[in-house]
């Protein structure tokens, strides 16, 4: 079997590959002739949104990406920041939204598989996973099916490969009903001098395919990820694969062993668009060419054509570039781990990628033109009409309920606010024995073995805010992430983002995207957090609407001293509780969870945000932690001050229903401005609840004054009730039960 008959190429075929007339014309111009079938396939995947970012590239340029600690910015498999001691943290987030919508378990599982590969390809050992998730309302049986499927998919895969899932977030909102967002983030630890990059350098070096065999999986998956979900999506050839965490674990170990050995010059994972994008990206980065013989690729299915082999998305495969003389040693490593290893081509210096079967040439494309001349579109943008309508919201028209205890209970049992124990208990969050702060506090904290340091990790984005005010919503996502890190004692080093939006061809959607990215970029600049990697997921739509614009942020920060790790929970009776940050503004209830779950409205504007005040607050809290003045720190976010205070009381014992004794609170909010319910539930940004020993009050107040941060005493830790004078009075155990049992009760 050497002859492969290829179909005739014309515009009709091109269209079916998702290539428009204009793009088809430039392909012919680049080639100087009609492309072959295989060539067209290569163009179609590399020029898909997923690989080319053709609709988002101009926006991504807005992000600040440089800082002294950045060892690797966007453009590689993952970004890397320096944490000192010759070590770096590699980080990246990915979406697996569409596969998870049609097969939640496998879709989410293979999402974990993909993101792991991005990290260990860089020579970094994966040390943590995070899983920011967005679903519709849990009232809906299909949503419950998606939710439980996604969570167990992540659990089974992540647990099996032995990487702890140390945190994440889960938001429930109708806008995500048929199109959930399943984002997954991975962090890895790398010795800076062992960082590996995806370069196909050195003419004459071998191109080696390693890992699993190649089958007809997910051909055209990269373009699938770039389409709206429709009825047909599920009828197509299975575009969802079965996760194979076991083989992934072997590939991970083998790859790290290979990198450690120093035998390879470049490594790239085969992710979306498989061999096509991996090999061509490697050649493009190195400015070289490649010649590959498809008959040498280890196959799983009979009769595969060069086109199919190039486009296959079979999992657990990598491309390695290495000098010829190292081949036998490399093969021995993969043999040990029972994985395939096969030389499939060589690096050339003519800048072309040439795909052959034996002697017959199936594609011959200039790499530079293929990559550099990929289309880039500045899409049309138009402010959505709903925005002005929402601005007309008058918050004082909302009737003030008499019973604030009742409101607090409703908010605490809203699945978005409620405890996520049901989720994270299914994840092994301790394997590798580094997790110092387990899921449940503002940020997860991992110690870095062999040093006295730790890193804090968080993921955040409130899609509702982005819907109400895309710019502020974007800025808030960054600010909240940085705030969560500050509360744990960490200084932000870098962030990774996943831009989840609808169809960019809709001008309203593109407007949201543009504004949100501008907001993110502005916050990155003011808060001094560089963007080091990211991912774009578009076409998140169901039949009737787009999801809320959801530019998810994953952020990592450094804690210089293990003794400074701080958690959100009150520690001892008698400690004094303060509110630091914005204590003077009038409350604004727009976009709050309270407005939604108690009053049934999504309305108004997103909370206001003053980024420079935010920055000052973070610096103050970190300095106070460093000075040893802080017993607990918790940011105020969804649910407002009342929820933040309640969460500080919910200390984490083994049994979720047994609260630690004496960590109740007696507080008084009468000095805060505004109506009572707004005071309790408005979602102010730039606010942190702190507690300190009574003997440290003066020092803490002094530091705040010195740094120009407002701070106000709210009350004292103690007793077993949550008391907010004249407003709230609940037994902590009861409030906790409401909060702990909300999700398990629905999922029973």
């Amino acid at each position, binding site marked *: 079997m050497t002859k492969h008959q290829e179909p005739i190429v014309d515009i009709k075929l091109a269209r079916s590959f998702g290539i428009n007339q204009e793009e088809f014309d430039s392909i012919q111009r680049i080639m100087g002739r009609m492309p072959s079938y295989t060539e067209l396939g290569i163009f179609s995947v590399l020029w898909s949104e997923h690989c080319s970012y053709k609709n988002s590239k101009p926006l991504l340029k807005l992000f600040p990406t440089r800082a002294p600690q950045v060892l690797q910015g966007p453009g590689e498999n993952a970004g890397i920041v320096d944490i000192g001691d010759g070590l770096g943290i590699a980080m990246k987030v990915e979406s697996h939204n569409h596969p998870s919508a049609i097969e939640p378990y496998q879709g989410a599982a293979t999402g974990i598989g993909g993101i792991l590969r991005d990290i260990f390809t860089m020579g970094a050992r994966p040390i943590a996973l995070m899983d920011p998730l967005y679903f519709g309302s849990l009232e809906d049986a299909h949503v419950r099916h998606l939710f439980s499927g996604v969570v*167990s998919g992540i659990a*089974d895969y992540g647990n099996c490969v032995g990487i702890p899932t140390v945190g994440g977030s889960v938001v429930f909102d109708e806008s995500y009903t048929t199109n959930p967002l399943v984002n997954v983030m991975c962090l890895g630890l790398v010795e800076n001098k062992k960082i590996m990059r995806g370069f196909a350098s050195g003419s004459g070096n071998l191109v080696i395919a390693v890992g699993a065999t190649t089958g007809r999986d997910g051909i055209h998956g990269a373009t699938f990820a770039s389409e709206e979900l429709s009825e047909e999506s599920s009828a197509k050839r299975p575009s969802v694969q079965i996760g194979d*965490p076991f083989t992934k674990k072997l590939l991970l170990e083998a790859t790290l062993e290979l990198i450690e050995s120093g035998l390879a010059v470049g490594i790239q994972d085969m992710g979306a668009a498989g061999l096509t994008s991996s090999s061509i990206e490697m050649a493009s980065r190195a400015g070289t060419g490649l010649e590959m013989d498809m008959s040498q690729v280890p196959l799983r299915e009979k009769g595969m054509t060069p086109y199919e082999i190039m486009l296959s998305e079979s999992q657990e495969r990598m491309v390695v570039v290495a000098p010829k003389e190292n081949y036998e040693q490399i093969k021995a490593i993969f043999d040990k781990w029972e994985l395939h290893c096969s030389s499939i081509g060589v690096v050339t210096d003519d800048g072309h990628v040439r795909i052959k079967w034996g002697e017959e040439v199936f594609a011959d494309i200039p790499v530079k033109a293929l990559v550099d001349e990929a289309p880039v579109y500045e899409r049309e943008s138009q402010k959505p009409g709903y925005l002005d309508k929402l601005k007309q919201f008058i918050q004082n028209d909302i009737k003030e309920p008499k019973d604030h205890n009742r409101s607090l209970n409703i908010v605490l049992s809203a699945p978005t606010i409620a405890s996520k124990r049901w989720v994270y208990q299914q994840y*092994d969050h*301790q394997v590798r024995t*580094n997790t110092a702060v387990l899921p449940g506090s503002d940020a997860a904290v991992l110690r870095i*073995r062999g040093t006295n340091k730790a890193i804090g990790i968080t993921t955040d984005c409130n899609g509702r805010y982005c819907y109400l005010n895309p710019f502020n919503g974007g800025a808030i996502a960054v600010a909240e992430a940085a705030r969560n890190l500050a509360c744990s004692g960490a200084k932000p080093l870098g962030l990774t983002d996943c831009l989840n939006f609808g169809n960019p061809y809709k001008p309203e959607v593109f407007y949201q995207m543009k504004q949100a990215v501008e907001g993110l970029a502005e916050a990155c600049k003011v808060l001094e957090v560089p963007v080091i990697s990211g991912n774009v997921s578009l076409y998140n739509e169901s039949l009737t609407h787009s999801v809320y614009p959801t530019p998810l942020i994953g952020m990592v920060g450094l804690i210089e001293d*293990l003794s400074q790790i701080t958690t959100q929970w009150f520690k001892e009776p008698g400690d004094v509780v303060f509110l630091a940050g914005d204590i003077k503004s009038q409350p604004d209830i727009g976009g709050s969870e309270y407005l939604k779950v108690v009053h049934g409205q999504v309305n108004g504007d997103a909370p206001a945000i003053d980024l420079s005040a935010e920055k000052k607050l973070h610096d103050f809290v970190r300095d106070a932690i460093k000075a040893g003045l802080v017993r607990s720190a918790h940011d105020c976010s969804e649910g407002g001050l009342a929820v933040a205070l309640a969460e500080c009381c919910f200390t984490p014992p*083994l*049994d979720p229903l047994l609260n630690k004794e004496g960590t109740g609170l007696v507080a008084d909010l009468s000095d805060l401005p505004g109506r009572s319910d707004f005071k309790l539930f408005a979602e102010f940004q730039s606010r942190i609840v702190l507690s300190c020993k009574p003997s440290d009050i003066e020092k803490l107040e002094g530091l705040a004054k010195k740094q120009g941060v407002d701070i106000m005493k709210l009350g004292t830790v103690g007793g077993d009730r949550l008391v907010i004078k004249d407003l709230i009075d609940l037994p902590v155990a009861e409030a906790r039960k409401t909060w702990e049992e909300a999700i398990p009760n629905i999922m029973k």
Partner: protein
Amino acid sequence: MKFAVITFPGSNCDYDCYRAVKDHLKCPVEYIWHREHSLNDCDCVILPGGFSYGDYLRTGAIARFSPIMRQVIDFADKGGPVIGICNGFQILLESGLLPGAMLVNRSLQFICKTVHLKAENNKLPFTNKLTKNQLIKVPIAHKEGNYYADQKTVRELEENGRVVFRYCDSSGKADDTANPNGSVNNIAGITNQQGNVLGMMPHPERALEQLLGSSDGVLIFDSIKNFLGAK
């Protein structure tokens, strides 16, 4: 006094066990790849947790056929101390070194949390530093930890003090609400007739530092060192 940590394809707590011996006990320790045919004169064998062969087919089912398991069985038959943690326990069950089998947790979910254990047998190489019925806090992390054995076997275990650890609450009560996975009689760990093979679902190697939440696992590792030192 040298320890062996057996690594199967898919093991993932091998690293944690290795660090536990090296950093905590400060004893020599080596990884032994499952295809090896020798235990290199080690004095104690640790079968670590994880997902050998991905837990495909059944937990521990494939791993028990690894070449090194012959040596492990020989070593155990000669009275050498063998401790299997989590997946290691499952492998011990499959290979017949311990009786019974694992079913999926009754919640059908993986569970990762810290639990209380009651140490009911403190006469073993692994428990001599514990007092009888001492309560310790140790994390569990598994999906198949629902221990099952037929009535006769359970009686045999119970009557001969072979139930080493039992899940209980903070007051030591081992009732159904303190049972995280549905295991028969709240069994968390058992030993063989000779008392030199221990299988337990909880992870003592995760409980060696207060920084990570509990240091009660120290007692188990120190017991082994104590036992080997006294030999």
